């Protein structure tokens, strides 16, 4: 195998593909603009929803209003509810989403509140489970009543000359010991490997199909096979180009993601996630980035070789697309699993392709370096990449694959 011939093939593929608009769009443009677009899109949407929620009043119905005029007045004073006159079919209306919820006061409600020592009256709340708006409204109502409860309790205690602190004999206090890097790392670090994996796959996708099935379709495969490059050189040239496309796409997407977090206009977010995101980006160490890159590289090799091996079976680009679809799903599922809460890296998971890289990158980005796992993940991913590359090379030796009719 001659390095120079591999380089010739590589250059040929590069020239061929960079003239193709699809490559440019998939590899460079899409990953570059996706994050800013999503970010501003989400910010806009979030703003609109909060504004809408603030404006909106929830239609509710009150049963037994005559028993609790004072409470209803307080309810009305919150400005969150539109209290409709009672009708018999209120349950039906909740089901039809005309009502968010209904509140039922028992007979003698306010009476029993005033009388000390009587049994506590209960308020009944009607809602429709699985209907998000209804659940939200009922949550708000519960909050309202709980507030009323504490106020009443405090009032009663004060009436008897007892300090309100008697209600909370023990207090709890929390202190977060995680570093800023850890906090935002766990929050955003889980997503980053996911994006890198998806994009390194996406970057490899079009070149892998075009250089195999596409070449068959255009009829240039026979002639390159008949030329003075060996099959091995041919595979390697193609493989390295697909790998380049994959890595470049991943790097661009990662950079774009980082830049978006860092420079995006500050969002009015209550939890301060935006500020921590900026701190997170700032806290990226070169070491952790290099480490993630080192993990993604063999994964990108694995993707590139697998895609080449599979797409070569197809007779044309269109057919290749249908073969590659399932691969996409198989790659995305482990990436998604890694984002789920409670999934922690262990020796078994460190052997599962894609998932292992995703999990270990998450660790690394949040500032911890489990060297044993890092080694295990790297080695196993390299192994899978080697197997996939061998499979791709083998495919190029098979006449029934190359000359399928």
């Amino acid at each position, binding site marked *: 195998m001659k390095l*120079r011939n591999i380089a010739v093939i590589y*250059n040929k593929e590069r*020239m*061929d593909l960079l003239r193709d608009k699809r490559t440019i769009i998939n590899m460079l443009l899409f990953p570059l603009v996706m994050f800013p677009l999503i970010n501003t899109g989400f910010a806009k949407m979030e703003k609109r929803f909060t504004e809408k929620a603030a404006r909106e009043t929830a239609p509710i119905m009150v049963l037994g209003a005559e028993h609790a005029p004072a409470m209803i007045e307080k309810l009305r004073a919150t400005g969150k509810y539109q209290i409709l006159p009672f009708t018999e079919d209120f349950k039906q209306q909740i089901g039809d989403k005309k009502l968010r919820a209904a509140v039922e006061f028992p007979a003698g409600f306010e009476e029993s509140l005033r009388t000390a020592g009587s049994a506590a009256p209960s308020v009944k709340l009607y809602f429709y489970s699985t209907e998000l708006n209804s659940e939200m409204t009922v949550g708000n109502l519960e909050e309202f009543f709980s507030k009323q409860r504490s106020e009443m309790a405090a009032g009663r205690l004060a009436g008897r000359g007892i300090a309100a602190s008697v209600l909370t004999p023990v207090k709890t206090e929390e202190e977060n010991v995680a570093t800023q890097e850890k906090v935002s790392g766990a929050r955003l670090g889980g997503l980053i490997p996911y994006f890198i994996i998806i994009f390194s796959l996406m970057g490899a996708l079009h070149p892998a199909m075009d250089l195999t099935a596409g070449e068959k379709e255009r009829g240039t495969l*026979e*002639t390159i096979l*008949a*030329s003075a490059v*060996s099959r091995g050189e041919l595979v390697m040239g193609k493989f390295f180009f697909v790998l380049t496309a994959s890595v470049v796409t991943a790097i661009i997407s990662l950079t774009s993601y980082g830049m978006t977090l860092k420079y995006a206009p500050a969002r009015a977010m209550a939890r301060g996630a935006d500020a921590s995101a900026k701190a997170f980006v700032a806290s990226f160490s070169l070491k952790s980035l290099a480490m993630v890159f080192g993990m993604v590289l063999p994964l990108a090799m694995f993707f590139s070789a697998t895609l080449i091996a599979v797409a070569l079976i197809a007779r044309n680009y269109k057919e290749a697309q249908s073969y590659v679809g399932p691969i996409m799903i198989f790659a995305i599922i482990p990436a998604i699993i890694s984002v789920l809460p409670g999934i922690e890296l262990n020796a078994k998971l460190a052997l599962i392709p894609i998932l292992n890289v995703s999990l270990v990158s998450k660790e690394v980005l949040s500032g911890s370096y489990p060297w044993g796992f890092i080694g295990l993940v790297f080695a196993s991913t390299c192994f899978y990449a080697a197997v996939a590359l061998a499979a791709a090379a083998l495919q190029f030796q098979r006449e029934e694959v190359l*000359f399928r009719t």
Partner: protein
Amino acid sequence: MPDEPLISVRDLTKHFRTFKRREGVWGAMRNLVKREYIAVRAVDRVTFEIQRGDMVGYIGPNGAGKSTTIKMLTGILVPTGGEILSNGFVPWRQRRQYVKTIGVVFGQRTQLWWDIAVVESFKLLRKIYDVSQRDYDERMEMFNHVLNLKDYLHTPVRKLSLGERMRCDLAAALLHNPPILFLDEPTIGLDVVAKDHIRQFLKEINQRYRTTVLLTTHDLDDIEELCKRIMIIDHGRLLYDGPLALLKQKLLRTKQVKFVVKDGEQAARLPALEKDGLRIEAVDHLTYRIVFDRTKTSTAELLRQILAEVEVRDLLIEDEPIEEIVKRIYAGEALKEVSA
């Protein structure tokens, strides 16, 4: 003493395994589960030799095995059986060294890369084939001269017409000055002018460099213009291998006389000629044709009869077109006579 043959092929055989495709949706589902495989003999015990400097035509109907033979000769496919020794190499075993001594053009394919300018492809090929810059420049000069490549060297291949692309493909195949050139349907889909261009070029390189050429074609004019020798293959079997002239001589059973009579009055007298199984067909107004078996009827005798009976303004004697002969060969009628 004759030269050692440049290409020698013995009992070359290639089997493909395909499966019977059942019809319909249900059939397609069953295809996925259980397949009945059939072995197809694409090439079946083919034997021939080609001398240096020869130009040999290789013809046969679609699916006869022409392209498969070429693919084995170029080392892309490994034969199921038999031997090939071409320019001292076994193509599929010493492919790398071997392909540096051959040029290949697949008429329906191209070795020029689709999206990049022609000249870029040439430069890449120059590197692959280790052609020195001096040789490259010299050959490009020649190609520019003979093939008129200059105008579209910087155009991407996909924008070239078929004829232009074929010229570029030929130049690409000959860049490393190979002693052997394999052409698979080099003139397919080209117009008359473009075909002529390609043929002239092939003649020229054959004469100038003594390049040995094996070409497959559907177009028998290619053969008549270029090749003294033809090989005919069908169903994977070599049906004929020999001089084109001999094939014609042995298989030319019929000839035709076409003539134009002076007027309608003369035409009315024609039926008198229809004896001894001769039939007169009207071709056009006042133009008639007699097709006859030259082994039974002598041409001179027939002419004498015609001229004696009617007044003729014009007259033409033609051999049976070679297409007709080849059709008869494919139909399996004709070859017993030749194989002797």
